[in-house]
């Protein structure tokens, strides 16, 4: 008969019921750097409220995310405690520090971005970190002004909607036959803008200089062609953002990406139905991005996708004008959610408060790099 001491018995018994009584993260061993982990951060840029997304009455607008949630880890209470403007909100996400810089892109983020930490410490090349965004002010989102880091370690920043705007404006101005009703006209101008002055649309692509590297250009053109010939006749900026993102993933397989969707900022126009349509479109595109991660061998099984709104919007009871704006600072503006999917995400959920600045702190851990001076805390639920 096996004899065990009382102390040993308690130890073993404790271990056997640990699963039942301790959260998994409390039992986790210190982690080794995740040398081949990949991170894709997807923001619902422009802002979206809980009430139109994960609140019971909003879930019909986001069928893909609702379907994905049981497979991932859901943070029910993800808070933006910073400035409720677009640039500062997203810059807080990528730096891990609350940002209070000029909101029109005249200043880069005030703290080192996770792109810079990642590239400098790992020696990753310029094609290994991308930010695909929308708002022109986001052109400076890829790198801080920190002398020890900065542009040499930043992300490539591409702004597909700005490219589309330039092309559509040209087509309208030139009055070509069929105008913008001809998708071929639009494609020709998109390619034209890409050849003639991509920097004019705010893009920063490293190593390529004034002329786009052939491989980069071919990749982007493939994204444009897929977009123009898409079976659902896509026409929005976010759809182009998706096609460009997917081509970049297929061609360069960057380990770190920020994808900033933006269509839902149409709420500023004051049409609730257009706002809801945009949310549903972003939900669909986010689902398609997850499908790509799941099917692309560079990403399958080693990628963590973090999906979160960059901010909310004013509540219906608010003094401003409800969903149109995001200036009040009320809970509808600040209290959001985050869904983590993939490699680092166990199935589960928590209602403990987490913060937008925690995203960068978590991402650097997932990438196996160290970052000093990040105010956010790594999300222990994702670091098992």
């Amino acid at each position, binding site marked *: 008969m096996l004899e065990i001491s009382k102390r040993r018995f308690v130890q073993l018994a404790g271990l056997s019921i640990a699963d039942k009584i301790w959260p998994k993260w409390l039992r986790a061993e210190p982690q080794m750097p995740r040398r081949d982990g990949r991170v894709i951060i997807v923001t619902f840029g422009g802002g979206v409220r809980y009430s139109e997304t994960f609140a019971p009455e909003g879930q019909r607008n986001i069928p893909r995310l609702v379907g994905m949630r049981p497979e991932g880890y859901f943070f029910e209470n993800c808070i933006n405690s910073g*400035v409720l403007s677009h640039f500062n909100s997203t810059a807080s996400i990528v730096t891990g520090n609350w940002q209070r810089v000029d909101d029109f892109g005249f200043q880069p983020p005030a703290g080192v971005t996770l792109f810079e930490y990642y590239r400098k410490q790992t020696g990753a090349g310029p094609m290994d970190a991308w930010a695909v965004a929308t708002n022109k002010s986001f052109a400076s989102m890829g790198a801080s002004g920190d002398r020890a880091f900065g542009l040499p370690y930043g992300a490539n920043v591409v702004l597909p909607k700005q490219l589309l705007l330039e092309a559509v404006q040209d087509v309208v101005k030139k009055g070509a036959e069929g105008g913008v009703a001809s998708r071929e006209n639009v494609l020709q101008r998109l390619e034209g803008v890409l050849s003639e002055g991509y920097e004019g649309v705010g893009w920063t692509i490293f190593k390529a200089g004034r002329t786009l590297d052939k491989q980069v250009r071919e990749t982007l053109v493939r994204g444009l062609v897929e977009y123009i010939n898409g079976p659902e006749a896509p026409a929005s900026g976010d759809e182009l953002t998706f096609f460009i993102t997917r081509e970049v993933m297929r061609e360069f397989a960057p380990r770190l990406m920020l994808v900033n969707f933006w269509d839902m900022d149409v709420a500023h*126009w004051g049409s609730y*139905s257009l706002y809801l349509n945009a949310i549903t479109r972003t939900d669909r595109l986010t689902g398609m991005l997850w499908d790509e991660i799941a099917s692309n061998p560079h990403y399958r099984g080693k990628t963590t996708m973090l999906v979160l709104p960059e901010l909310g919007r004013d509540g219906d009871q608010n003094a401003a004008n*409800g969903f149109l704006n995001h200036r009040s600072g009320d809970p509808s503006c600040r209290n959001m959610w985050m869904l983590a999917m993939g490699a680092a995400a166990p199935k589960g959920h928590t209602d403990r408060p987490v913060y937008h600045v925690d995203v960068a702190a978590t991402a650097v851990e997932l990438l196996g790099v160290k970052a000093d001076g990040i105010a956010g805390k790594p999300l222990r639920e994702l670091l098992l």
Partner: protein
Amino acid sequence: MKVSPKLQALIDKGLLDRLPVSFSSFCLDQMKDWELLFPAERSYHERLFGLLDRSSAESVEALFAPVREVERAMGVNEKTFPKGKFTLDQVDFLNRNPRYPEWRAAIAKVFAQVDPVLDADVARSGHARLVVVMAPSDLAADPSRMWLRIASRGQRVALDGEFAPGLLGSVVQDFAAGKHGGAYSSWIVEAGSALARVPAAGAVRYSYEGHAPYRKRLMKEVQAVVDAQVAPGPRQFSERLKQMKILASEGEAARDPLLAEFARAILLSGNGTLLINNTFVEWATVQGIRRARPSVMVVGFGIRNKVKPFSSLLIYADQDTSNPIPSQMDTLGTYVDLEVFYQYIWQECEKYAEYRNNTAYLFVGDGMDEILAIAPADFPLLNAKGPVKPSAVAQASKDWLGV
């Protein structure tokens, strides 16, 4: 700065100098274009500063102590907040300051103490008011699917016949000529022209369709400023926009500097008022209520067009000319949009003492045989036994207003 003699006397006494600078600068900024303020706005400022003047120095100091405290913590000083200056720089300073939420809370606390006193003044001189919000005839929704966000607050009233916009003309006109009437007391805001055909002398009128010449010129001029890149930042851009005033040939509002400036501000407020008819209607209505506190407000929504592929990205482009695809009505989208706007308009009114407990809200549909009435219990229609004739709605409204 020119303000009323009453207010000037208070300023001369140094009343504003005794207040926290972020508060006093904001108020001075609000008052700096005194001639462009509605009577209700002028009255508010006079009553606010009159109250502060009548209050003891200790109580004013106690009232503003939390604001002073947070100002110190924020680093408010003569450099960041030059006396009397409240430009985008100061807004930016506040917005980006880590203690901005505390500042907002401190300011809200001031108004939470002041407003009940000011509201009591207003309530003592209150009178009956009427707000009519009309859905367009092309909105193919059954009345039972209308006004769902606010229906529980009122009573549906069946009509013996269909409601028509023409019924409202004499209500507006008679009120404007009555004892509570006068300048800026009656407003008609609409997307199209159905209400424009209703004779209502003395009413303030804004119409998205009616302002088409001004809107289209604004779009061109704004696009030209963007293209020329002569306004490198929001401050310079804002200054440019202030110069784009309505011309006499572009609408009646040009005759009155106050109404002309209101039209400019509504169309260039940064939201979708240039682009979407119903956004214009909602924003003009909400701002009209907030600023002018009209006693009669008649609001006519329209059908929004579908967003056109690609060209809709160009927010300052005329969609009729920039895209060969014909414009199409979006009736379903409009229905969804308006359900929110009915709520927002009702809510906006209920924020103000002038409207609370004094106002009959009638939500009607052009051609519909049912209305929603949200009103005090003594509003005549609420006691109707069975369907009422549409003309009786107009009469009940007149009886309510006492005209």
